[in-house]
C-alpha cells in the first residue's frame, strides 16, 4: 500500500469497513511510515475536535420558545387568524 492509497482509505479504516487483508496492509504501511501514522492520528483528532462542537447546541431558549413556535406554525392557511 502507498501513502496515497492509505489516505484514500482512512475513513473506511476508522469505520472498520475494509476487508481484513486491506486492513492489515494499511496497518503494515502505517507501522513503517511515520507520515501516515501522523495522518491517522491527526485525522482522528480532526473528527474529535468536530465532535466538541456538538456540545454547544440546543440552547435553553429552544425549549422555552418551542410552544410559541408550534402555536405560530399550526395556523391553517385556509383559516387565517384575524
Amino acid at each position, binding site marked *: 500500500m*502507498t*501513502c*496515497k*492509497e492509505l*489516505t*484514500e482509505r*482512512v*475513513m*473506511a479504516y476508522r469505520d472498520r469497513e475494509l476487508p481484513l487483508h486491506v486492513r492489515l496492509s494499511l496497518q503494515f504501511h502505517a507501522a513503517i511510515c*511515520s*507520515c*501516515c501514522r*501522523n*495522518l491517522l*492520528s*491527526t*485525522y482522528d*483528532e*480532526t*473528527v*474529535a*475536535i*468536530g*465532535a*466538541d*462542537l*456538538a*456540545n*454547544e*447546541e*440546543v*440552547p435553553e*431558549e*429552544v*425549549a422555552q*420558545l*418551542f410552544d410559541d*413556535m*408550534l402555536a*405560530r*406554525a*399550526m*395556523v*391553517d*392557511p385556509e383559516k387565517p387568524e384575524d
Partner: protein
Amino acid sequence: MSANPLLDRLRARDRSAFTELCVAQRDRLYGIAWSVTRDRQDALDVLQDTLTSAWRSLSTLRDDTALHAWMGQIALNHARMRLRTRRRKPVEPMDDLDALFEADGHRRDDISAWPERPDDALDRARLARRLARLADRLPDDHRELWALADTQHLSMEEIAELTGLQVANVKTRLHRARLQLREWLALELGARP
C-alpha cells in the same frame, strides 16, 4: 387507514399528533438547523419555518413517509435557504489531493504529529470554534455533510436520506472534507500539514 396511526392523525391535522411529532424531533431539527447555519438566531428561524412548512404539508404525507426523515429534509432545505441569503466567507478551493503525492503514491511532504488536545473545556471549545471557522471555507455541500456527520453525529444512512445522495457519495465527500479540514487545521496549529 395506514399502518401508522400517527400518520392518520397527522393527515387529519390533529394538533396533538403534530405537537407530539415536533416535540420528539425538536432537538434533532434544531441540531440540523444550527449545524448548517452555525448561527443561533438563524437556527431558531429555521426551526420556526420548518414547523410552519411541515404543518402546511401534512396533506402530502404518504403511507410510506418516514416522518423523521421528512421533517429533517424540510429543516435542511430551510437551513440551506437561510445560508444562501447570508453572506458567508468566501469558499476556498480544496487542495488537489493528487498533487500531495509523488507518481509512485508516496507523500511529497512530511506530516507531523499535533500537540496534545487541551484538557481544559474552554480551550477545547476554542479549538472547536477554530475548526468551525475553517469549515466555513469548505464548499457548501462538503461543509454540510461534515456538519451533519461530525457535529451532529448523524449516520451516513441518515445523511443520505436527508440529502438525497447515495451513501457512497456521502462517505466520499465527508472524507474529502475531513482531509481538507485536517490540512488547514495543521497549518493553523503550526504543524507540517
